[in-house]
């Protein structure tokens, strides 16, 4: 058999490709069923906006899950960072570029700090990632309530909200930011030493350590990235909603993990692609969007997303069994 066919075989067999096929199929089906409303520029813009913040969070979560870790705290850290960002903008006042910058710095610092704390708990105090980030999930949410007094901070500069709901060349600004973030961290993951170490730790932390990788430091960096990106997500959330949405984002962590896993990243670590994560973010969003357009009873949307998730994990498991043989 020729080399081209072999290469094609490998490509088709990759879980990312399977998921891409599913995404394309879903898009085609909806476009055919609702030709006048689904495949429109406006709806595409809506889908891109809906996906943007999740994609930023999922980018960080891809790193975390490749190390065989998990971060349950992203939704709360997002809310916490948004509160800090909003407070920073309130404190600097004016609503001009400098106070918006203060908000960005505030949000990123707040998110990064939670990420570092998660990383330290996991790498230094040897708390399992599930428990450590479950702790931060509650703590970050609680502190967000303490700092805000339980009332949403609404004094977000109108300039920021205009930016958050704006477009460049017809594409929502938030989507551009998210795609740039995903591309940047995707390249780092695929092509740099940092990325290779992330995979190595996920495959086998002990051999990574023996190979001279400072595993503890690396894990802390990975969780810090996830926290930092949750901070970015918090700031983008302020730009999109114009308020801190304290009571919101209760399902964000599960949406993010779902997206990363659908995208072919293995919960057992060592395997994962940023392109897959990007596809994984879009599948549930496109499914929900299309179902709503078709007027399907809302409960079914969750059934469908759940099924796609399970299919993704089955694909992952089969590959692992195959490799083990």
């Amino acid at each position: 058999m020729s080399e081209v066919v072999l290469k094609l075989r490998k490509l088709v067999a990759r879980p990312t490709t399977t998921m891409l096929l599913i995404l394309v199929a879903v898009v085609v089906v909806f476009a055919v069923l609702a030709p006048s409303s689904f495949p429109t520029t406006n709806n595409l813009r809506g889908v891109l906006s809906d996906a943007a913040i999740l994609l930023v969070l999922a980018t960080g979560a891809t790193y975390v899950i490749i190390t065989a870790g998990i971060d349950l705290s992203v939704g709360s850290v997002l809310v916490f960072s948004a509160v800090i960002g909003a407070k920073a903008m309130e404190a600097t006042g004016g609503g001009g570029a400098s106070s918006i910058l203060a908000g960005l710095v505030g949000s990123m610092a707040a998110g990064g700090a939670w990420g570092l704390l998660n990383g330290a708990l996991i790498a230094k105090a040897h708390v399992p990632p599930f428990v450590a980030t479950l702790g931060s999930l509650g703590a970050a949410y609680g502190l967000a309530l303490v700092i805000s007094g339980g009332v949403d901070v609404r004094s977000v500069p109108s300039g920021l909200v205009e930016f958050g709901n704006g477009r460049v060349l017809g594409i929502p600004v938030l989507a551009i930011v998210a795609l740039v973030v995903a591309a940047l961290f995707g390249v780092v993951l695929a092509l740099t030493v940092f990325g290779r170490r992330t995979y190595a730790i996920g495959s086998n932390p002990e051999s990574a350590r023996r190979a001279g990788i400072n595993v503890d430091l690396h894990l802390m960096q990975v969780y810090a990235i996830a926290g930092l990106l949750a901070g970015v997500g918090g700031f983008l959330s302020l730009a999109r909603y114009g308020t801190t949405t304290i009571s919101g984002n209760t399902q964000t962590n599960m949406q993010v993990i779902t997206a990363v896993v659908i995208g072919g990243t293995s919960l057992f670590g060592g395997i994962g692609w940023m392109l897959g994560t990007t596809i994984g973010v879009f599948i549930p969003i496109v499914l929900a969007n299309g179902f709503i357009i078709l007027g399907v009873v809302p409960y079914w949307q969750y059934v469908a997303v759940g099924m796609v998730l399970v299919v993704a994990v089955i694909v992952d498991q089969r590959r692992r069994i195959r490799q083990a043989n």
Partner: protein
Amino acid sequence: MSLTKALRTSAVLSAALVVTLTVGSCGASSDSATTSGSPDAGSAAAEKNISLILGTISDDFYKAVECGAKLEAEVKGVNLDVQGPAQFDAALQIPIVNAVAAKSPQAIIIAPNDSGALMPPLKAAVDGGAKLVLFDTNLDDTSLAAGHIGSDYVLYGQQGAAKLAEIIGDEGSVLGIFSPPGVSTNDLGRKGFQDELAKHPGIKLLPFEFSSGAPGKSAAIVSAVLASKPDLKGIFTFNGGDAQGVVTALREAKAADQVSFVSGDAQPFQVDQLQQGLVKALVIQQARTMGKTAVDFAIRAIDGEQVPAETALPTLVGTLDNLTEPDVADNLYKGC
């Protein structure tokens, strides 16, 4: 192995695609018939498409609103599409608004999950030509909507206080549990509750406690107050979600005989509690009427008529005696 699996996956996908293509083409042709509105298709052109977006699909109050809206849509012969987030969460509701707007319905009826965050997507939908009717919760800028329909929350609090005062014989300490300050409906209800109790000098109003429908929280509150205030005679909760916590705490402290409980809302479990005597009265929002009125307003707005900017439906007091009367029975929080 990997190739066969990949082939199988592709085969299944393409099969599914072919099936849906066939089914889809039928759906598509009928779809275009209603939306193109050619002049000779008189009935099709007059058809109205209205989307109802609930605050959350997992709530009995919204299910009752949905029921009222569906019944009215049937009567008026309009198409009603119902959607809603799994939880009361702006981040989950906004994608739904975006998808609904893509369908270009003539009107959107919504209970916004956040008064600010929902503004941009709803503004985009209104700019796209949809009429907007708000129910239950509201927006910061109401000028976007044709009208808002809610309940008279001051009356809600007043009725709760008056009924509780009557039951406990105008004597003893009373505890009110509401959402924390900042939730507009609860703020109004608290005012009504306080003003009404001021007319009953024999009653001592304890400091307000705050819970937003979390039974664990309300149970902890009631246990603590029971321990510290032996003369507690009555409890009112604004949010029906807190009722289970209050009932549990009273049962655990064996205080159900000394302390009377009146609750807001009328979810199915609360109606059971009323029948069992665990709660003495319910203050009920006219959920079905709200859904019915919202659909009426949407139809009028589509027809270019004015609708009232603000409508506050009076709340009802439900007791064991009037539970089967049509007014009360129809507005209990349940779907249909």
